[in-house]
Every structure is written in structure tokens, then in C-alpha cells.
């Protein structure tokens, strides 16, 4: 599977530069502007991928940045890009929204994702039943789907997924493998 070129992969100096900006922004929120500029688009696309309402996605994205600035004093630099923290806030905001309205959750599937997932299941028979994938994905739990979404829909590396979900990289790999097995079984049950 091709890895998406992600802003998660940044040089040490770029991450440290970002950290300096964050430290300044702790004293004056206006100094947060370069971070907002850098991450607004990826966070908005991240949120929108999980929703079907553009306006709500824009509102949530603003809320993510607002919350980040409000909680900036609590931000701990761990050598990771600042985006990790923003994505975590975004995940929390989205989860709160979905708790209130489960129908807001959206699965945005396309041909390429379908092919990648089917390839990952390593079963050629399944290619004949591509349309079934949508039905199967809806049978996954929210947590399982989130993992698949990050890995196959957004092509995030396991290291980043682990950081976003606050689990170890190895755990992310094991979980992803298990979900794929689960999908495979569901697929077979559905297509028999």
C-alpha cells in the first residue's frame, strides 16, 4: 500500500521550530497564526471525511483550534508534530458529536480505498463482491472503523495512528490486522 505523503513526517528542526511558535503562542494567542495556517486544511479535511455536512465540519475545525489555544498551557512537547495534538482534539470533538447524533457519522468510500482494502484481505474472490464492502464496513464498531479509516482511507503510517489513538505502534498493527481478519470473515459470511 502506498503511504500518503503526510505532514506528520517532518524534520526535527521543523518540529522544533513549530514548538517555538507554540511556546510564543502560550503568551500571546496571536502568535498561533502560523500553526493555524499550516494545519487548518488537513484538520478540516480530516473532520469532513468523517461527516457529510460541510458547515458542521468547518465549525468543528474552528472549535478544534479554539480548544487548542485555550488549552495551550497544557500542551506537552514530546518531539512529535503539533498536528498530533490537534488531531486528538479533533477526534474528541467528533466523538462528542457522534455520541449525540450517530447519523452524522459518514463513511466516504471510493474505488481506490475499496481496492486497497480488498487487496489487504488477500482473497481474490472478494474482488467480485466489491459492493458488499460498504455493508460490511457498517458492521464494524466505531473504534475498529476508525482504525481502518486512518490506515486505508487516509493512508496514515502506523506510527502516526498509534500517536493519534494513544496506543503503541505494535498495538496499532495488531489491531489493524485483527480488524482486517474480522472484515474478511464478515465478507465471507455475507457473500456465501
Amino acid at each position, binding site marked *: 500500500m502506498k503511504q500518503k505523503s503526510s505532514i506528520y513526517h517532518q524534520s526535527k528542526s521543523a518540529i522544533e521550530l513549530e514548538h517555538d511558535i507554540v511556546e510564543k503562542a502560550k503568551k500571546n494567542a*496571536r502568535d498561533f*497564526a502560523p500553526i493555524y495556517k499550516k494545519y487548518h486544511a488537513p484538520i478540516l479535511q480530516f473532520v469532513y471525511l468523517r461527516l*457529510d455536512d460541510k458547515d458542521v465540519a468547518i465549525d468543528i475545525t474552528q472549535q478544534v483550534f479554539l480548544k487548542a489555544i485555550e488549552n495551550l498551557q497544557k500542551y*506537552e512537547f514530546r518531539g512529535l508534530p503539533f498536528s498530533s495534538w490537534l488531531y486528538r482534539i479533533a477526534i474528541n470533538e467528533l466523538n462528542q458529536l457522534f455520541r449525540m447524533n450517530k447519523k452524522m457519522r459518514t463513511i*466516504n*468510500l471510493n474505488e481506490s480505498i475499496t481496492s486497497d482494502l480488498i487487496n489487504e484481505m488477500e482473497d481474490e474472490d472478494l474482488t467480485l463482491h466489491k459492493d458488499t464492502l*460498504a455493508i460490511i464496513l457498517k458492521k464494524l464498531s466505531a473504534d475498529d472503523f476508525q482504525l481502518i479509516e486512518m490506515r486505508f482511507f487516509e493512508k496514515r503510517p502506523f506510527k502516526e495512528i498509534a500517536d493519534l489513538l494513544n496506543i503503541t505502534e505494535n498495538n496499532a498493527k495488531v489491531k489493524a490486522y485483527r480488524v482486517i481478519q474480522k472484515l474478511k470473515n464478515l465478507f465471507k459470511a455475507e457473500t456465501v
Partner: protein
Amino acid sequence: MKDAKLNKNRKPLSDEEVQKAENFDDILSRLDKPKENLFQKNWPYLASVLVLGVIGVFMFGDSENKETVTSEKNTFELITPINGMNIPTTEHKVIAGEEGQIVTESGTIIKYPKNAFLDTAGNPVTGEIEILFREFHDVIEIFASGIPMEYDSASNKYHFESAGMFDIKGMQNGIPLTINPDSPLVVELSSKQHGDYFNLYKLDEKGKWNYIEKDTAKGVYTQQLDSIGLAQLPQRIKTLEKNAKQTLRAQKKADKSFNKLLKEKKIYQPLKANNELYSIRLESDKNEFPELVPFKNILFEITEENVGFTPELAIKDWDDIQLKRKNKSEYLLIMFDDLKKHTFIVRPVLSATNLEDANKVFDSLLSSYDDKLGGKLLSERTIRDSLKKVYKSISDSVNILNNFASRQAYEMSEIEKSTARIKRIFTIDSFGIFNSDCPQKLPKGALFEPVFVNGKDRSDTLSFDHIYMAELNKNALFSLYGYWGKSKKQKDSEESGTDYITQEISFNPYNKTVIWGITLDNRLAVIKPNKMSLLKKGGNIDVEMFVSNNKINDLDKLRKLLGFS
């Protein structure tokens, strides 16, 4: 996900749409606005304050075990879970205005510069003052202190794994002092927890932890390494290994180039026979294989890829044997008998006794050819041989350093295990409670929903509104809030029976876990690690606890009771 909506081939937002949505000024303007719905947004905090308040009144009802955290805003009080047990404060008398340091029993150093202390009006203080100091190093001390160990990072809830904590206050004649922000104190907290993954935090007046900075701990271990330059050893080895790899690549390239020249000129380079392979002595045709002519006692070694060769074949009488060229360095040995033909790949080699002479022949052949090639052959060989030497020398250095580093790492880990203490450095410009911690998520792996009962009397249902959990291999105290036990609105009629309230507790079954709590009627109850294995299966179950009916007023007794010693 069954309620989720499904879209196929929906496009992401366009660049224009994203750009249109960008509005940093909107965020800045919203920053200054008061919260629209304070309760909804802050309910976890308000609820925890409420719970703490209830515990204080319900369990203890007196003020002995309450302690004010700051002198400015008395909005948060520490409540020690066991009545009458707390971590004592040590009073250190120092002269304000002068520079000095305090060294505590554990080895913690508090350094104060000149004019470090101010009175409440902000004026420098002189004369004798008291520094009140206490430190907390393990789960038991942290538990006994009542200091909250939960941390909220942008709505992510964590529990602290601690590398050490302290509480510091300054007083003069009973009046609280402050620290001069221009002359901060430096506290070098003695810590037994190793690792560089901790951060420094301060407890605020609302009972919430605030991140200060990354912990820059320096320990005996690190300092010793630094003093003899060993801390840079891994980097040095890495650089050398990189050099070795580059040299090996260059050497292989030179080798290839030299061998190519040999093959082009059909010069045989003598090879030593492999003792583990079979060799056959043959007279080869001088016209067909002129490259072998200069060498005496040539053997033909059956190469490794000949899987069908057996020792019997070597001593058999053959009707005919032929030798054919396979490629520039290998030949085909074809042996015939009445029934069939056997073909094996062979290469010319020399036994150890003949090798020296062969090499001399080879050298003289090289020299004669080299003249024709304008010195190219010998120069390629010199480059190759010198690279070989460089590679060997770098590899030797890497091996020596690796052995040295492994030995050092082993010795240091032994020191670390036994005596080493790390100093965790805090620069503080205010009094209060500080810690060096790492946020952790609740342990996971097994879930159970308990009704806690007294192990000695199962009819004695235990009620808690706060459960503590710790893993013996980790210095983290996990606090679980909620309610477990008989319903507060208990139904006494036989028909309806007793109502129990419970909620799930998760733990890691692979770690040694201890769970305990103070019951609502003020008894300490505990499940030790050996009993935790019974809870792996999970579900809604009655869980027996060991209940201590004795008054516990000693930390060591508490440690023993909870299985920490």
C-alpha cells in the same frame, strides 16, 4: 457504525472551499467571549469538585485531614483518604536575603538565591524564615497525601505515573511568603524513577495540574557516562558502522573491477581449496584451458550447488571424463559410465601446500600482463587491498566499541538497579505542589463489574465512591470515581431484594495489580495481586476483599497491607 451514512466517491473539499473556511480572527474573537454553557463544558471538573466535597463531609466530617493548597484562593483542599495519616512536613530554618541551600534526608537539594523570598506585599524579606517541605516518591505516599493524580489534556483524561512530587511553602512568623519571580528557587528532587519521559507539572488552586516543561533529569548514571564521554558512544559506533558500510561497498566495487580485468585477460587467480568440499585431480587440455597451464597440482572442486554429488562418485572408475568451460570462473565436469552421464560444476583450486607457489605464479603473470595494460591491473589490486585493510580496521574498532558499550550498559544498569538516584530539576517562582510525571491511560485488558464483599463475611457488602488501583511495576496511582455497593435508595422488602450499584473496572491481567478503597464506613479494603487473577474472566461478579478492621496510622503498615513491601 450501523447508523453511519455511506457516500461513494465524494470529493474532498476543494482548495477554494478550504481557503474560504479559514478564519483565524474568528478564533481570536471567540477566545475572549465568556463560555455560553459553563456547566456543560466543565461538568467533569465541577463533578469532581462536588465528589471530593461529598467525600470530605461524608467520610471524615472533621478538618484534621484537610489541607489548604494555596494561601491566595482557598478553592481546593487536599483530603487525605485515611484519617490521621499524612506525609509529614519538615521545617527548615533559613536566613532570607542570603543565598543558600537545603539538603533533605532523601538527598533532594533546594537552592535559593539572594532575595528569593517576598512578603505578601511583594517586599524582600530578611531574617529567619521557615521553609516547609515534604516529598512523595511512591504510590503509597501519594495515596496517603490525597494529592489528585488525574490530568486533563484537552479533554483527554490521564492518570499520572510519578517520578516524584514535592510540596513547598515559605513562612515567616506564621505568615505565608511568596517567591521573588526574578530570583527563582531550584529544587533538585531526588528520584528513584529512571527514564526521560517525564514532564514537570504544578497543581493549581483549583486542584488541576498544569504542565510546566519537559523534565530535564540528570542522574548519577548519565553524569558518569558524560564525564568519560561514553554518552556519545552509540553515536560514535553508528558513525563508524556507516563508514564501514561505505568502505565495504567501495571494496566490493574495486574487487569486481579487478576480477573483471582478470576474466577479460583469462588469468586464473588461485583459490584455496575448501576442506569441506570434494576436489578431483585431473589433467586438463593445455590448448583448451591455457589459463590453467602455469599452475601445478590444480584440483577441481565440486562447488556447493552440486546437490547430487556423493563421495562414492569420487572413487568410482569412469569410462570417460570430460572438462568443459561453463563461464569465466567455473567449469563443467562430465563423467560417463555404461549407463549414464553425470555433470557437475567445478572450479579450479589449490591445496594449502601448493597455494604459495601458485600465488607467486599468479603475481608474475599479473606483472607481465600489467605491462601490457599500462599498470591498470596492479593499481586496481592495490586499491582493492587497501580498502580491505581499511574495512577490517573499522570493523575491528566497531567490535571493540560495541563490546565496551555492552559492558558499560550492563554495569550501569547494575548501578542503576541498586543505588542510583536521578535529580529532577525544577525552577520554581511560586510555592505549591510540583511533580515530575508522565500521563498514562487506565490499564486495559480485562473488565469486570464487581459487587465488593467482605472476604470474611460475604453478607457484608462494601460500598465505595472512590477506588484506587496500582500496578506493582509502575509508580502510578489510578483513581476510579463512581459508586460501588448497596444502593443508597435500598429496597428492603424481600420481594425486590437489595439493589446494588456497580460499574466496570478495567485492568491489565498481565501486570501485578492491586485494588483498594476506603469504604463509606471508613474501613480499608484491598484485593491483592494474587486474587486479581480470579477476575480475568470478567462479568458481573461478587468480589471478595480483605478488610482491615485495625486503625492504620503508619505508612509501612499500609505498604505491607497493600502488598507493596
